[in-house]
């Protein structure tokens, strides 16, 4: 009996099919302050949230050429927060009018023995990094401004080194499939950040 193939198709059945709409950009370190100020003005009125997360990317190499990728993320500064397991599908291509990158997304909260479980399942850790930055929200949109730190000694999250002199800015919405006006709202919001940061649809395949 063959194992069911690891599929790249969107995960269906059970829950609602959720899609992640994504726009990305970056700012240099010295422009961070002005960007944060602007975001505080544009986004919902809350106390500014900072975060420090540690993310590990696991791969399962099957018979197919492309491996199955799962991302496990934990919060380093909030004790008691559950781990977060995420599956991101391939970006949906085709529609040039869609302003954001759309891909299937499955989010699961897990307990702390996630890494052991994944190892037992056959996943192997590909890489890990630490993300440190700020978190904003506007309605259903989430704006994250963070810096990626490379982990020098595997497993030791204290010895880190910044990957670049810039911050990554991501604007994302997780919504049920089919709601395309979400991308219009995202684009309007991105327009308001225009001179400071250009948020655009970046196709990961083109970078490789």
């Amino acid at each position, binding site marked *: 009996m063959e194992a069911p193939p690891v599929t790249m198709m969107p995960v269906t059945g059970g829950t609602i099919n959720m899609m992640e709409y994504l726009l990305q950009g970056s700012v240099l370190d010295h422009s961070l302050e002005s960007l944060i100020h602007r975001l505080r003005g544009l986004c919902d009125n809350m106390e500014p949230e900072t975060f420090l997360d540690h993310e590990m990317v696991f791969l399962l190499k099957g018979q197919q050429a492309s491996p199955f990728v799962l991302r496990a*993320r934990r919060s380093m500064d909030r004790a008691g927060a*559950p*781990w977060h397991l995420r599956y991101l599908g391939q970006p949906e291509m085709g529609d040039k009018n869609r302003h954001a990158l759309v891909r299937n997304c499955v989010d699961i*909260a*897990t*307990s702390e023995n996630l890494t052991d479980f994944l190892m037992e399942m056959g996943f192997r850790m590909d890489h890990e990094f630490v993300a440190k930055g700020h*978190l904003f929200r506007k309605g259903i949109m989430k704006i*994250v401004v963070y810096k990626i730190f490379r982990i020098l000694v595997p497993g030791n999250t204290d010895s880190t080194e910044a990957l670049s002199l810039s911050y990554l800015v991501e604007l994302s919405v997780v919504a049920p499939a089919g709601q395309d006006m979400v991308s219009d709202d995202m684009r309007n919001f991105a327009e308001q950040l225009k001179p400071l940061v250009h948020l655009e649809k970046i196709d990961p395949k083109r970078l490789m």
Partner: protein
Amino acid sequence: MSGVRAVRISIESACEKQVQEVGLDGTETYLQPLSMSQNLARLAQRIDFSQGSGSEEEEAAGPDGDAQDWAGAGAEPDDEEGLVKFQPSLWPWDSVRNNLRSALTEMCVLYDVLSIVRDKKFMTLDPVSQDALPPKQSPQTLQLISKKKSLAGAAQILLKGAERLTKSVTENQENKLQRDFNSELLRLRQHWKLRKVGDKILGDLSYRSAGSLFPHHGTFEVIKNTDIDLDKKIPEDYCPLDVQIPSDLEGSAYIKVSIQKQAPDIGDLGTVNLFKRPLPKSKPGSPHWQTKLEAAQNVLLCKEIFAQLSREAVQIKSQIPHIVVKNQIISQPFPSLQLSISLCHSSNDKKSQKCAPEKPGPEDHLYVLEHNLHLLIREFHKQTLSSIVMPHPASAPFGHKRMRLSGPQAFDKNEINSIQSTEGLLEKIIKQAKHIFLRSRTAATIDSLASRIEDPQIQAHWSNINDVYESSVKVLITSQGYEQICKSIQLQLNIGVEQVRVVHRDGRMSQHQVHAVQQLAKVMGWQVLSFSNHVGLGPIESIGNASAITVASPSGDYAISVRNGPESGSKIMVQFPRNQCKDLPKSDVLQDSKWSHLRGPFKEVQWNKMEGRNFVYKMELLMSALSPCLL
């Protein structure tokens, strides 16, 4: 002499060629001027070789120097000068040359003198002393003239400045539109969120940035007010800025909550009048756009409240279903009691202005509930903005922190329910309405009882600090004047949402009198002989039981017996000593006269004819009347 350029003198001879002959047709044939060699020959013939050579050299030096000074002179005169000392009268430029030469000499001399004088070493210039000019005018006149001049100068400057100012003021008047628009826009920006889209200025008056999830866009547009005639006088309340609000938010709105006793017919539903509430007076300092925007925002909030309530009314399953009709939600918290919540939105159309504004009755509106509705929706907004919703780690979706934990920690249904506040807006409001109704009912009951029953007084003390769902009242039943001793009956009523809990401190009301007598006896020194809360003798009361007490005077002569029942009222009997009763049958058994001091038969007291404000007073009087005063 600086700045004066050297003047070039150019001299030209009017060398016209000599006419040789004039042709028949008028053409003139000119004598060809002599060529150089021919000229030289001619001149050579004139030379007198007999003369000495010294003068030749002198003459040669001079004209050579002159040749440089001469500009534009032809070759002929130079040659002439250099070679021949001829008679001056024959050469036409001689006088000119001499004059120029002398002028040059003079100039050189002057230049030399001036340069020497400049050094001041060898020669100085001395002013020629002149006689003082005779003063043509007196010194005061001179001063006057000088002052006048200076004042005129100052006046000139001031006039120039004033002219500039008036120019700027007039410019201001003309550009009043342009400049005031910008300052008004600045003021608008201090209160509302604005952004520029293309060439339009849009604003946001929704509560979305405060946490609302209502899908209305809530954008308004800012436009420049250009319909102003500069010639006419600008009106007092003119504003160069105008706001255009979405058409469905025009006018004013409010939520009306009312409780009615009878349920109306179904046919009457949906005909809630849209009252045109008189427009709330704007604060004196605020511009008209502020009131307009605030009214629109209020309309939006009322719409959101009503949408939330109607959504819940439809979704929530309750025993008596709620009815949602047009702009009214009707529910029945208690049987035969109807709670109606309606959204009254009056736009500023001319049509609605025609219908006369009806004054809502005072018991119609439950303002407290309306206020609470506003507070509840604001709380709901704040909930969506609270930081417990923010995800940690950052890639997690938004949601309550504890809900995210429910998966990994395997919560069961009860735990999950405890996290989610299952109560919606509607339920909360209905609970509050029930409580209010119950409270008012209780208060009315107590008040009516208190006014009806005079003898033991009923006092109700409502506590000031209440919850929305619970109130408490302390009811004291006392007799006037004897509050301290007759404090036995105290009731505490806790009025909840659906029930009234009564906590008795002691027995019922009918026992009050008897207890009062007991206390009084203690005070007066009378002895309590018997006391019974629930007597088994006598007519049966419909509510509760009668109670009785018998007290004896300190000397033992008299005894008072009181029987009090809630229905039968009070019956007081006094027992007299035997020697006071006249109609006692004489008996031979009792020989001794001491037996006559014992108490004998009872006699009823006509209590309603007794003097005294209330029962206890009367009792006190009776007791004191029956106690012999020791004088």
